[in-house]
Every structure is written in C-alpha cells, then in structure tokens.
C-alpha cells in the first residue's frame, strides 16, 4: 500500500527503464533453477538405474559404480541449495531429499565403535529401530508391518518417525549410508567400508537381511527420483515455483535472502563452524562417503551462480542471462563488484579445502583438534562466507533502500505524512 502510493506519487518524476530489467533477472534465476534441478533429476535417475543393476546382480564393481553415481548426483543438487531459503516450496520439500544428520541405526545395523547412537535416547526412541532387520515393529505405540519395503513406507512411516528429525529414512544421506556404511574411526583417512556382500544372496550375504537391504536401497533411490521430478517440474515453464518468483514484486529479495541465509546461518554456522567447534565427525554433512568438502564447495558455487546469472550444467551446457550482478551494478557498481569479489574469494578458499581433501586429507581429518592446518582451511572458508554475507546485506540495502523506509514506516501509513 505504502509502496504503491509512493510509486504513484513518483511515477512522473521517475527515470525511464534501465538496461537491465528486473523481470529478466528473475527469468535467469528461474532458468538456472530449472536447469540445476533438471540435472539433479537426470543424475538421480542414473543413480537409481545403477543401484537397481547392482542390487539385481551384486558385485564389488557394481557397488563402486553406484557410489560413483551418488557422488555425481551431488554435484548439481548442491548447486540448487541456494534456492532453498528464498522459496518456501523448496524449503518445505528439501527435508525429504537432503535431511541430515541422521541416526542411521533406524535403517540398518550400526557398530558401537562409530559415533551414531546404538540405543534409543530421550530425543529419539527409534534411534536403534533397524528396519532392515525387523519386518515388524512397534513405533510410537503403533504396530508396523514392514515386510515389504516400499517408497511409501520410507516416506510416510519411517521418515522423521516419532517426530525426531534425526530419523532420516529418505534422501541422499540415507542412500549414502546404504552405499558406504558408517565411517568408523574418527579423524582417520578411511570413509565408510560397507562390503558389497551386504547385498549378496545366499551364503555370501554379510550382516544378514541382504534382500531387505537391497529393497530399501532401491526404494530410497526410487523415492529420490520421484521427489526430484516434483521439484524439476515446479521450476519448468509454467511450474509453481517458477511462477511464484516471476509474480513476486520482491522477487529480487528472494534471491538475496536465499544467498544470505545459506551463506551465514546454514553453511557458515550450522554446517561448518559448529563441526569445527565440536571437533565432531558426526557433524560432517556427508560423513559416510567423506564427500563433505564437495558439499560445501558446490553450495558456494550455487550462490555464485545465481549472482552472476550463469550455471554450467551436465555436458557443459550453459544457462545464462541478465544477472543480479548487472542489476545491482546499475544502482551501485562498487557494491556489485565488492559482492562479486567476496564470492570469488570464498570460492578460492573452498577450492583450497577441496584440493587438499582430494589428496586424501579428508574433511573429518581437518576437524581433528590436533590438526591446526586442517582447521585453518575450514575456518578460512567460513570467514569467506561470513564476509560475503555482509556484502549481500549491502546489496539488499542498495536495491531496497527506499522500500525498507517505505514498508514498516508508521508515518507512511498516513499518506499526508509523506508531504511533511
């Protein structure tokens, strides 16, 4: 209301259109979302096919192929996380595909030498449920028949069972646990060591219930595909998520909110600083596969993508267009350049962390309090994320300086106040 009044008042004085139209910036933002969720779906389908082939004909090579497919699937998906906090449709949905950390004892056997709970505890009475070993069980006082392991059982009965967020029964990290197993040995150089024979038939089967384990893995991969189908279509032409952005008078605010919230509270704080302060390998985002450095790297890259209006997808296909950077530069080039430089700085720090991790110095080893050089790599990336958040706030203020003074201003609820 205030905004409209003020806009009408000023319309006569307003300068004509700028070279970069806000609508074009929003179109680029939604095009990148469509491409990145589309790539996430494509790689998830490949993961599902690879997993199904492995379960049908288990072998060491089959397990390795499935692990490779999982690692590939994470690359586009992590680049979509920048869409989460600005778009309620994504935030409401993402817990189905990327929930973490998990009490993996809900799903399968766990070793007391690991860091996962092996017993039920106050916050999670189902922490040791082990669905794979138990075709029937009681959950929150209800008798559950899990003789057939289906996507519906995972999504509707097991996921967040008993209201505990640590009961992650679906998504990338549940699949990761089934492919790698627990990462036993804090701070050491190994990832999870699950043997392929956990899926073998007959006498070759290790750790029992191989058929049920295979059924769980396939059901979880099927579910991941259907969940990503939903989100990819929501961003396609005419999709609900895309329309919500295009029709939002503060669509640019959504982009910046997503960038800032992911940078600061979620990534710098919850995912990185907390693990470093606790020195706790359970705080690794991908603790089973030791892929956490890539999680952080591609999250940061996703933030950079939406700012620069450019995403490089599968097979090198480029999605690009009018960018937020261009839009900010029209109002204040110094602010646009400072934010661009801050994002580049973070990406370099993330690259250093990734390079070191890929030479065998894994993220959980960096969390070892005795390892100061490792902690310094993580801290430098955190500091970059915090610094870029301040530049994002400056961009918000540059674009919305007046909007903020207009909205939430009591004096402007009274139109006469404008003329005082």
């Amino acid at each position, binding site marked *: 209301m205030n905004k409209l009044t003020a806009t009408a008042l000023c319309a006569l004085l307003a300068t004509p259109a700028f070279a970069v139209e806000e609508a074009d910036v929003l179109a680029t933002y939604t095009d990148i979302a469509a491409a990145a969720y589309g790539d996430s779906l494509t790689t998830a389908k490949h993961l599902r096919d690879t997993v199904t082939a492995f379960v049908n004909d288990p072998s060491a090579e089959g397990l390795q192929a499935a692990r490779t497919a999982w690692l590939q699937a994470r690359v586009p998906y992590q680049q979509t996380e920048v869409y989460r906090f600005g778009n309620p449709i994504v935030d409401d949905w993402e817990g189905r595909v990327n929930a973490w950390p998990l009490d993996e004892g809900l799903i399968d056997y766990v070793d007391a030498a690991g860091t996962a709970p092996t017993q039920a505890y106050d916050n999670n009475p189902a922490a040791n449920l082990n669905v794979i070993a138990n075709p029937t069980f009681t959950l929150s006082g209800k008798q559950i028949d899990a003789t057939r392991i289906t996507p519906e059982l995972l999504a509707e009965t097991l996921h967040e069972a008993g209201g505990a967020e640590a009961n992650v029964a679906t998504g990338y990290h549940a699949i990761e646990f089934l492919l790698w197993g627990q990462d036993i040995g804090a701070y050491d150089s190994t990832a999870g060591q699950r043997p392929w024979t956990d899926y073998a038939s007959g006498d070759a089967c290790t750790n029992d219930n191989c058929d049920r384990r295979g059924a769980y893995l396939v059901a979880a991969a099927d579910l991941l595909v259907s969940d990503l189908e939903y989100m990819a279509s929501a961003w396609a032409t005419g999709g609900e998520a895309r329309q919500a952005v295009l029709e939002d008078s503060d669509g640019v605010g959504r982009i910046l909110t997503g960038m800032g919230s992911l940078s600061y509270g979620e990534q710098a704080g919850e995912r990185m600083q907390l693990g470093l302060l606790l020195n706790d390998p359970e705080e690794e985002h991908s603790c089973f596969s030791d892929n956490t450095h890539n999680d952080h790297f591609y999250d940061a890259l996703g933030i950079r993508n939406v700012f620069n209006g450019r995403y490089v997808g599968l097979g090198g296909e480029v999605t690009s267009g009018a960018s937020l950077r261009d839009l900010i530069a029209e109002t204040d080039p110094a602010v646009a350049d400072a934010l661009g430089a801050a994002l580049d700085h973070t990406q370099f720090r993330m690259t250093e962390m990734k390079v070191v991790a890929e030479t065998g110095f894994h993220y959980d080893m960096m969390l070892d309090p005795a390892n100061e050089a490792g902690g310094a790599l993580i801290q430098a990336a955190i500091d970059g994320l915090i610094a870029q958040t301040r530049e994002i706030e400056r961009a918000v203020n540059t674009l919305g300086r007046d*909007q903020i003074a207009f909205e939430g201003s009591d004096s402007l609820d009274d139109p006469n106040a404008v003329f005082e």
Partner: protein
Amino acid sequence: MKLFAILPCAVAVLTSPAVADVDAALDRHVLPRIDDLAAETRALADTPCDAGQLRAAFDDAALAWSAASHLTLGPAEENGRARAILFWPDERDSTGRGLRLLMQQGADAWTPDAIARASVAARGLGALERLIHEDDAQPCALTLALSDDLAATAAAIRDGWHDGFADMMRTPGGPGNTRFLTESEAAAALFTALLAGLEYTADTRLGRPLGTFDDPRPARAEYRRSGLSLDSVQAALVSLRELAATLADAPRTLEALDRAIATTEDLDDPVFAGVADPQARFRVETLQTAVREARNIAATEIGAALGVSAGFNSADGD
C-alpha cells in the same frame, strides 16, 4: 524496476530517518553488559571450590551471559567464542559426551591450552552447570580449569570490543574500516542483534521446552539444572529493553517489552516444568506471544525510526 525508479524522488520527499545513537547504545548498553560478563565470569573463576559459593557465582555469571548473548556480532563471533561461553541448545548431548571425555583424559587434559582446544560443548557455562549444580563441583581441578577458561573467553570478548570493535562502530567508513561503511550499517547491526535476541528468546529459550501441545519437552529448557530458565528469559528481556531504549525513540517497543517482562514476573515456573500441564502451559505460551509481539513492534517501530532493515542472523538456517 519501479522500486529503484522512485529512488531520487523518495529522497526528495521523505524527511531522513532519525540517526541512531550508536554511541549511546555502545556506552550505555553494549560495553557495560560485556564488562559485566567479564567481571562475573572472573568472579566465578576466583571462587574457592565450595559448592554453595560456586552455585551463587555460577548463577551470576550465567545471567550476565543471558543479558549479553544477543551481542553475537564481532568479538563474540570470532573463534566461536559465543558457543564456548554457552553451548546450547545441545541436540545430541554433546556436552555430556565432551565432559566425559575430559574426565577420562584426566588432569593432563585440564591445562588452559588443552581446554581451549577441547570441544566447545565441553567448555563454558553448560559444562560448569553440570559440574557445579549436579556433581558438587567435583573434580575441583576440572571445575576451576573450566571456569578459568570461561573467564578468559569472556575477557577476550571484552578486549575485542574495547580494543577496536566499538571504535569501528563509532567511525564507520573510516580508513581501513571495511566492517562498517556507513552509520546505517552500524545501526543495522545493533538492530539485528535486538531482533535476533528477541527471536532467540521466543523461539529457542521458550520454544524448545514448549515443544508442541502433544509433545512438550520440559527437559530441553535452558539452565534447567541450575533452575535459572525463567530468570534467564527475564535477564535477556531486561537487557534487550535497555538496547531498544538506547537505539531509538521507541515508546511502543518499550511498552511491549515491559508487558513481556511483567509476564515473567508473574510466572511462577522457574524451569518451565509446567509446559506439560495444559493450564500452566498456557502461561508460558502467553509469555512467548508477548515476546513475539515485542519483536514485531520493534521491527516496525525501530526499523522505521532508523531507516534500516535487519541483516541476516545466525538462526536463518535450519
């Protein structure tokens, strides 16, 4: 584009918003609260190993932090100091696990250097609350080592404010000051701290024990072991009122905060045990609603008075 198109015109027709009194907020709120935290934690560290005396000193230190915990910007954020002062909420019993590890490691692990490298969950007020209020401060050497470490962390925050950060806020845009480029940025940082503090009190200090009607979680209350849960909320609200009063002329915000503070005074439920009882639960919910109202009024009234919007805060993630 319409928002940007109106910019030149808006400047012409609007009177500029009142400039925030950043100096007043620093001198009359931030620095005294930070000094108080350093003094109370030092007093705790200087207390002899007597459970009764330590409990009284712990309570003063804990409430000094409740009155300063919203000041997460700058020195408290560096090196995770705020989390090392109090690691809470503790979703997966990290404090219990970290403290057991320190006990197992024995006295060799209780040197200042070793404690400073330990998991933050095993340090600070959360660990000390267990030792002092549940274990009669035993082992003494560990209790004293942890309280020394706490006092050192608080002193580092105090020194950070006095030896640079406060001056950066006072001289935005000065040579080499990239942290605060304009006075608005300094004001916005304090405004963000105010709103984040109110949100944290409503959503976390009160929200965690409240849980849901069907699943109340009294065991998740902050400081339930020392019986300070309600006192902590009250100390936080009184301090946040002080910040609001120095930041801008905001009569409606102060009235709303006074209502919330009065609600804490009427509430006879020191650790929010009543959340599991429908009658008593209602009173805690009433307090939560009062804090949220104060937050919303502050967002509008002070935001408009300062002409700034709140920045991102650390609770923006999950």
